[in-house]
């Protein structure tokens, strides 16, 4: 069972397309819109660049949650990159379920570069979701052993 502790701050990795989510994060910043510092952004040239292994490695590297943010469907700069990303996220969700980490720790979002507010909302939504789920089962074991706080 996941153990929810009051001082648990989830580590979240966001793979962001430079044409939408990354620009939206930039806009959120220049608009002084606050979003949780739990989210660490990885810039991608397109959400279609995301690979199953990037997502798995993020979890292996002790991320509690991961999301991919790409352009709105139908507006991908490379036409179908975001649709490919969606399929890969779906596939990795099934892998995380079979391993026992849980597919709900991974999500795909779509937004435009003009949506700084939406970027912050997504960051809050994902942070709250993972906070409710508790630390990744990989990190829980370590916590019990006292290797990390």
């Amino acid at each position: 069972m996941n153990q929810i502790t009051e001082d648990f701050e989830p580590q979240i990795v966001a793979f962001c397309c430079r044409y939408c989510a990354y620009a939206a994060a930039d806009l959120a910043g220049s608009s002084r819109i606050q979003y949780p510092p739990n989210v660490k952004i990885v810039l991608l040239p397109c959400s279609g660049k995301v690979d199953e292994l990037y997502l798995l490695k993020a979890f292996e590297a002790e991320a509690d949650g991961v999301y991919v943010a790409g352009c709105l469907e139908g507006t991908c700069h490379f036409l179908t990159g975001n649709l490919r990303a969606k399929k890969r996220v779906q596939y990795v969700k099934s892998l995380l379920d079979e391993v026992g980490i849980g597919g709900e720790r991974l999500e795909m979002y779509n937004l435009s570069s003009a949506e700084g507010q939406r970027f912050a909302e997504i960051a809050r939504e994902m942070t709250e979701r993972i906070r409710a789920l508790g630390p990744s089962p990989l990190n829980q074991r370590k916590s019990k052993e006292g290797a990390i706080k």
Partner: protein
Amino acid sequence: MIIADRKPFEEIKELTSKAKNILIAGCDSCVAVCLASGEKEVAVLASELRMQRKMDGLEGEIEEIVNVRQCENEYVDAMRDKVEKADLILSMACGVGVQTLAERFPDKLAYPALNTKFMGRPVEPGVWKENCEGCGHCILHLTGGICPVARCSKSMLNGPCGGSQGGKCEVDPEIDCGWQLIYDRLSRLGQLDALVEIMLSKDWSTSWSGGPRRVIKESAGV
């Protein structure tokens, strides 16, 4: 090519539960083309196993290796250094590859991570279909290049049977009737008269019923 599919993770987890150091050995030939093996598939399984084993508190290392063909001694022997450090080789090759590992490394456990399915080809992205059963005596020249042994569910030599409906097989409506395909093809080629000939019983002694088969090519040693 040989078509295979990865075993369910639960089964792989069970197979590997007693091993400490595991070498996942992929093959970059047939099973990589059907996306069951290859560098990425090996890396994905390794990542899954590393996470699962960490959660279950199991110790040990997961190593990865992929070679061109796991069914040839030369390639397999080149793996020796990594094999020596492993308690278990988890093969992501077809059954031939697993057996090659077992033979070349007699003191090591070699377990399959794939289920080897059949000889076939891709028909659309992500879909592979069976084309050949390796019966040992090819008759494709008589049947318009469509094999009745592999493509007819009943391997009939004089078809179709009464279960062919609208070009589909009674065994499964997803399966095309092999004999309908043969008829259509011969019709297109203007060779329907070939079907007037009744095909006599096939010599199945060349097939699997005679036990494990072998091919000897004298000139290969020259």
